[in-house]
Structure formats: C-alpha cells, structure tokens
C-alpha cells in the first residue's frame, strides 16, 4: 500500500470516529474520500455504471454499519476493496444479464478535442471489452493488481486466495488481454 494511502488513512481515523458517533457529515466526508476507489472498482468489475452505483451504495451502507470493525482493523481500503468485490459478485448473481457497454459515453472526458475524445472512447471500449472476456476471478485479480495498483499480497488478502493463485490468475488475464487488444486493433486499424 502506498505512503499516501497510509497517510490518508491516518487522517481518516478521526473522521471514522466522528462518523461512528453518528455524525453524518463526517460519514459523507469519508465517502468522498473513498468514493472514487469504490465506484471505479465496481465499474471495472461489473461493466455497468448503474450496477456500479448500486454496488457502491451497498458498500457504503455496510461501511456505516461496520464502522467499529473497520476502525479496529485499521485498514479501511482493504476492507472496502473486499466488500466491493463481494457486493459486485452478489449483484452479478442477482442481475446476470446487465448490458455494460452503454456506459462508455457516461464517463467524463478531460479533453475537449473531439479527436482525443474519440480516442479516449475507444480506449474505454477496449478496456471494458477486454475485462468482459475474463473470468470473474481473473478480472478481479487484474483490476486490483494492474488497475488499482495493489500488491499481489494485498490482492490475495482481498480475494481470500493464496498469492500463487493470484499470480496465476493475473498472468492468464494479462495474456488474454494482450491477445484481445492486438486482435481489436488489427481489425479496427
């Protein structure tokens, strides 16, 4: 875990204590601190912004009800990643027929240039399609390791697997993604 994350978590402990005492403004501050992490991870795992918002809502409600446990564990990011992965898994079982690709246009574009926007849209499309090709476990491992930047050990802890299993899932996922990206650009360029 990065030093920045650890520092943020140290500052966040006061906010957690206030939220635990029933201060909703403090809890809102806590949500703002972790909302990008939770919503974007859920979006990568589910492929649909609408589903990702539902999963994020469940995650933050669980966080509020378990503030005591989270405070005691001292690792809010790890706890949130684990709960997010589980919430996405449950949502996927409840809604197996989600249509994810329509969300590509929902994302904010940082550049106003239409050519750049189009390139970004294509990258988003490639990202979503390549993640969709992976099995649920491979996807979770790749998203946490390569996109969210967790270490293999942290990914193993979040997914409740061994490091060897995670390594195997990550390597398979990377080879599959490489194959897909090359096929995609051979076809579209």
């Amino acid at each position, binding site marked *: 875990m990065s030093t920045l994350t650890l520092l943020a978590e140290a500052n966040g402990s006061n906010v957690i204590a206030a939220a635990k005492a029933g201060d909703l403004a403090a809890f809102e501050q806590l949500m*703002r601190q972790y*909302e990008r992490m939770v*919503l974007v991870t859920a979006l990568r795992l589910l492929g649909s912004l609408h589903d990702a918002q539902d999963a994020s809502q469940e995650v933050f*409600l669980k966080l509020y009800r378990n503030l005591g446990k989270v405070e005691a564990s001292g690792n809010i990011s790890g706890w949130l990643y684990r709960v997010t992965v589980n919430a996405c898994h449950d949502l996927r079982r409840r809604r197996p027929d989600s249509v994810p690709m329509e969300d590509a246009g929902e994302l904010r574009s940082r550049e106003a240039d239409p050519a750049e926007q189009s390139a970004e849209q294509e990258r988003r499309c490639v990202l979503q399609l390549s993640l969709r090709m992976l099995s649920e476990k491979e996807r979770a491992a790749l998203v946490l390791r390569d996109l969210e930047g967790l270490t293999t050990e942290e990914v193993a802890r979040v997914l409740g697997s061994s490091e060897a299993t995670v390594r*195997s899932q*990550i390597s398979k996922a990377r080879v599959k993604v490489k194959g897909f990206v090359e096929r995609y650009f051979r076809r579209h360029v």
Partner: protein
Amino acid sequence: MNCTDWEERLALYAGGDLAPAPAAEVERHLAECAGCQMFASGLRASLELLEGAHQEVPAPAHFAAVRSRVLAQLERERRPFWRRAWVYGFAAVAAMLLAAVAIWPSRWVAPPPPEVAIVHAPAAPVPIVPARPPQAGHKPRKKAEPGEPLMVRLVTDNPDVVIYWISERKGEY
C-alpha cells in the same frame, strides 16, 4: 524450452511480479529470443492502454448520486421510532377502514328471512291452493279486495312442515 512455456513468466515480468532471480532468467531469455521480445512488448502495451483508460473516471454527478442515496437511507433509518410509527399507524387505520367498508354493505343488503309459520299438519300432502275456492271457468283472476289478506299454504316434502305465507298487501305477494 518452447517459447509458449515462457508466456506465464513473461506476463508476470511485464507487471513487475517476478522475484529478482526469475526476472533475471527472463531477461536472459529475452536477450536471445525475438519472438518473446515482441510478446513482452505486446503485454506492456496492452497493460499501458488499460491503465490509461482506467484513469478516466465517471462524472462527479455519478458520485454525488451514490452519496445522496446513502445519506437518504441513513437519515430514514435514524428517524426516531415515533416519527416512523405514525406512518404505520395511519396505514393500519386505513386498512381497518377499508375492511369495514368492504364488510358493512353485505349486512345492509342481506334481506331479512321471510316470516313463516311452521305448523304441524296431517301427513297427507296437500297441493298449493289459494285461500279462496277456485272460480269455475277460465276467468281473469279477481283482484284481491283492499285490506283482504292473501294466504298461501306451501306443503313441503316433509309431511311435518307446512308453510303459510300471509300477505296483507293489496293484491301483491
């Protein structure tokens, strides 16, 4: 060793997931294998593409929507019991009123049972006959005199039960 056997290690090497010793072994192989060099550069390019696309985040409105949904839910749960109770109380009273309205008309509509006199009669069955003797020939039936009671005696299958129906209305049964 076939280059396919290197794929897994190359994939781990591309993401920096190999320990120093196996990483050095992969580097030695890469130095002498053009095919694996291409494979490794393809892996790095696809990872960079994914990482770049992952930096783009949803618009702030999507985060705000989640926040407001969560806070609204928590506000609802935190409302004191008596403030939630009146809603349930109102719903219960409304349900009772609806049930009462649904049941009440059936009491009004139900006609009172006909007043019949049950008398013990002789066992012989008797046909239904008007109280007055029948007129000879086929003449139009004489209207009952005003105030004159009309009596109908019904004989049932049970020889012990005979029903008398006495109407005091003028010419009506």
